[in-house]
């Protein structure tokens, strides 16, 4: 499938800082592409270059195979990480304001239904809760019926319920064959929404692929967790892939049955054994050396 947007050797310098250091990527149509990374990794700079908000120092950005032109703003939808709205307007008035800025638009009632805005249509935008505000911002990003939508940390600051509601909304948007480029600090969000992810660190992409591919590349199938106090000294001698996780020791393995048998044979105390799958959180820490927001 031909990419809807692609970048080649993208570089962005600020005085004394290389924010983006030669990244290249292609995003196929219809997927949700996640751009992950710790603070200062260059995610927002990268996404804002893709959005056409900033010019790169060097490198190319192609939308449907063409350089970003005047039509681009008509055809993409953007939800910024930090944005303010015109004050003293209601939700309905804000939607109408943005509707008038585009040639082709989605009927407002359709957006209201899609983003569950019916109850707050006449509310002043300054009085919206975090989740309501994000739903409105998403509606504004969708107002021109874009094929490509950028969501820059859209759920930062939302409570878990509001975040999950927002995920459902994004899934609904994605089901309409829209391409979504998402940046997030939340690995569970990336896992829930993204078909493909790229992890950035220090301006570069350090890992890219589908979440499943990346997890299998970096880890075994499952991880066994044992309290250090129960089995610490014994595990060191068994030649297992053991990772120090504070009070716990984590054993990564592709052969669960065999590993457990080996632990039993060597007298390990398995009373408090826990088994879990590897997550993107583990991957994130593994490739960047930093903890993500949780």
């Amino acid at each position, binding site marked *: 499938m031909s990419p809807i947007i692609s970048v080649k050797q993208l570089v962005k310098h600020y005085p004394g800082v290389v924010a983006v250091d030669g990244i290249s990527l292609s995003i196929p149509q219809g997927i949700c592409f996640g751009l992950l990374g710790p603070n200062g990794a260059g995610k927002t700079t990268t996404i804002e270059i893709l*959005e*056409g*908000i900033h010019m790169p120092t060097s490198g190319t950005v192609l939308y449907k195979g063409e350089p970003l032109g*005047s039509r681009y*703003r*008509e055809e*993409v939808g*953007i939800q*910024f990480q*930090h*944005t*303010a*709205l*015109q004050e003293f307007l209601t939700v309905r008035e804000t939607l109408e304001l*943005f509707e008038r*800025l*585009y*040639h082709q638009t989605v009927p407002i009632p359709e957006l209201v239904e899609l983003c569950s805005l019916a109850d707050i249509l006449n509310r002043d935008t300054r009085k919206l809760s975090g989740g309501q505000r994000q739903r409105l911002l998403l509606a*504004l990003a969708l107002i021109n019926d874009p094929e490509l939508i950028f969501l820059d940390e859209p759920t930062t600051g939302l409570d878990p319920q509001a975040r999950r509601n927002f995920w459902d909304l994004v899934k609904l948007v994605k089901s309409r064959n829209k391409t979504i480029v998402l940046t997030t600090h939340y690995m569970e969000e990336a896992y829930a929404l993204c078909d493909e992810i790229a992890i950035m660190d220090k301006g570069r992409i350090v890992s890219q692929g589908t979440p499943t591919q990346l997890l299998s590349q970096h880890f075994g199938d499952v991880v066994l967790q044992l309290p250090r106090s129960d089995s610490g000294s014994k595990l060191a001698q068994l030649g297992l892939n053991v990772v120090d996780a504070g009070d716990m020791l984590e054993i990564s393995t592709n052969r669960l049955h065999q590993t457990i048998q080996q632990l039993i044979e060597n007298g390990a105390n398995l009373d408090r054994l826990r088994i879990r799958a590897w997550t993107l959180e583990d991957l994130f820490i593994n490739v960047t050396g930093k903890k993500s927001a949780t």
Partner: protein
Amino acid sequence: MKKFLAVLHARNMEFLRDRSALVWNLAMPFMLVFGLAFTFSGSNKEIYKVGVVGGIETLSRIAPVLQATLHIKFVEYDELNKGIDKVKHHQLDMLLDVSAAPKYWVNSSSPNGYLLERIVWGVEGHQFQRQAVEGREIRYVDWFLPGILGMNMMFSCLFGVGFVIVRYRKNGFLKRLKATPLGAFQFLFAQLISRLLLIMVITTVVYSGCNLFIDFNMQGSYWNLLLVTTLGAMCMISIGLLIAARTASEEFAGGILNAVTWPMMLLSGAWFSLEGTHAWVQQLAQIFPLTHMIDATRAIMSEGAPLSQVMPQVWVLALMSVIFLALGAWVFKWE
């Protein structure tokens, strides 16, 4: 107390580290004090204002004692009729014509004219022939009205537009608009028209409301008045847009806006006439749109000036508006 001091310290550091705001806050008072001291320097406090046609030098030759009298400000006029009109409207206490046989004009109903006449008569060997004129006094409120309305428009246009755009830029709203197909000129023009409508409605309401009680002297056409004030407001909004075209600091924008509004407020003839000030002050005043707006407004209201008479001011205001708006759109940055 600890919390108060912590906040105080943080705010002080913020202010001190915002170099642009700091410089403006320091520079502005200096500029004002020195500017005013220089502009209005001189120990004499004039009580009477006398127009002279034919040159002050000629006056000092034929009536040196009169010309040397303290507390009388002599202002040269090239046109006799213009001077006579000023006497009619009590804007001059007396007019002297020394270009031919010496004559003087006073308004029969002017107390200052009456007293000046006594002074002229007391000058030894005076040869001035009396010419009396009649005319309704232009009350101070009539003279002052264009200035006060003009100043209100200036502050509303400059601060109302400038600060709002800087705030939009600071809180990211402009960035959000940048992501849409909206062009910079469209955005700025919308701001201009919005503020223009607002200020014209407010000014009309204020004028009409006050007129019910004060009965302003309006000799000219309201359409001409509307044209001049609209152009004046457009021009000052355009300046506000230009000032806000790039800055993201409200304090810096405030400094620039003050630097623009204070000289305009003092030197545009809003509070007092610039007649008799240094020539360079009068020339400097010509760069301010408020000067042109107030001059044209006063001419329409007090003298009933037709459009043809205020066309120079109309052209200047229109040209300035176009230039400032074009410059603002050219240098404008969404972020």
